[in-house]
């Protein structure tokens, strides 16, 4: 493991990401990672809060384009996340909180996929608050908010632990 991470960190990409004085290197990658986080988790939060009874006038099917935004946010963060990892691979690979973050993201993605499948299958009509959301879906929405927030907390703690 140490061999791989040391090689990654010493690679041209790792050196550029870490040491380039350009504003387009590390600062921009970090900014994009933050924008991707806002788009991915923010779009998730809209659907979760809607399932929990916020904004009942908001038709659930009209929110389906949000999944495209989630994919875009996830793609941005997968790419920028790999770059940020490569820039200090040996340090990050030794941080337990990094693995906690990855596990929380994997779990959160599974929950998001389950919520999408459930809401599609149940054919929730949305509209003027007349749609009863099944309890298993509201439970998943609560779980989604908790786990995505946990991923943010773990990501932030990587800077401190």
């Amino acid at each position: 493991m140490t061999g791989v991470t040391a090689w990654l960190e010493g690679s041209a990409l790792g050196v550029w990401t870490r040491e380039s004085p350009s504003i387009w290197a590390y600062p921009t990658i970090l900014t994009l990672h933050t924008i991707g986080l806002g788009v991915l988790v923010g779009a998730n939060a809209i659907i979760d809060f809607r399932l929990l009874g916020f904004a009942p006038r908001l038709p659930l099917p009209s929110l389906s384009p949000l999944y495209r935004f989630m994919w875009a946010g996830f793609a941005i963060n997968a790419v920028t996340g790999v770059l940020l990892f490569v820039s200090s691979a040996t340090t990050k690979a030794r941080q337990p909180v990094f693995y906690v973050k990855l596990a929380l993201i994997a779990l959160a993605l599974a929950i998001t996929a389950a919520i999408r499948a459930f809401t599609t299958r149940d054919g929730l009509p949305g509209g003027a608050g007349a749609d009863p959301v099944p309890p298993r879906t509201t439970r998943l929405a609560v779980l989604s908010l908790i786990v995505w927030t946990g991923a943010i907390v773990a990501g932030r703690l990587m800077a401190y632990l």
Partner: protein
Amino acid sequence: MNGFAAWLQSTALSRIIVQYPWIWPLCEIIHFIGLTLVIGIAGFFDLRLMGFMRRVPVAAARDLMPLAIAGFLMNLTTGATFFVGKPDQYVNNLAWWAKVFCLVLAGLNAMIFETTIGVRTMALGAGDDTPNAAKIVGAVSLASWLGVLYWGRMLPFIGNAF
């Protein structure tokens, strides 16, 4: 401004904020959760104003706004905590002033929207396109919030804050 920063830094509150090493990371965590609510919820409404996701009734998209306001208040509180704790690293920081400028722009833009085309725009239902004025308001809002995020992220790189 430097005199004010020096005074602020000498207050008991400022000393408390930097004295406990867990306060700063805790505020950073809350700041990022608040950021997600603002970008996610306000960004969603801005995109609808710009004419995207037309199946969403405009007023229904606005119903989520209390969550964005909650996120903003989280960030105002934690942001003020950072400022009181280390005022000197912000007042001489170009990125911080650019961030404040974007915040003011977002606020003014929202006020203009509410006092001019707000009521008319809110009547737009599913499938309705938005007028050009609403598209401009949405685009300015989205750009200013992304500006707030961008300059916030640049604080350590342009002005040596953390």
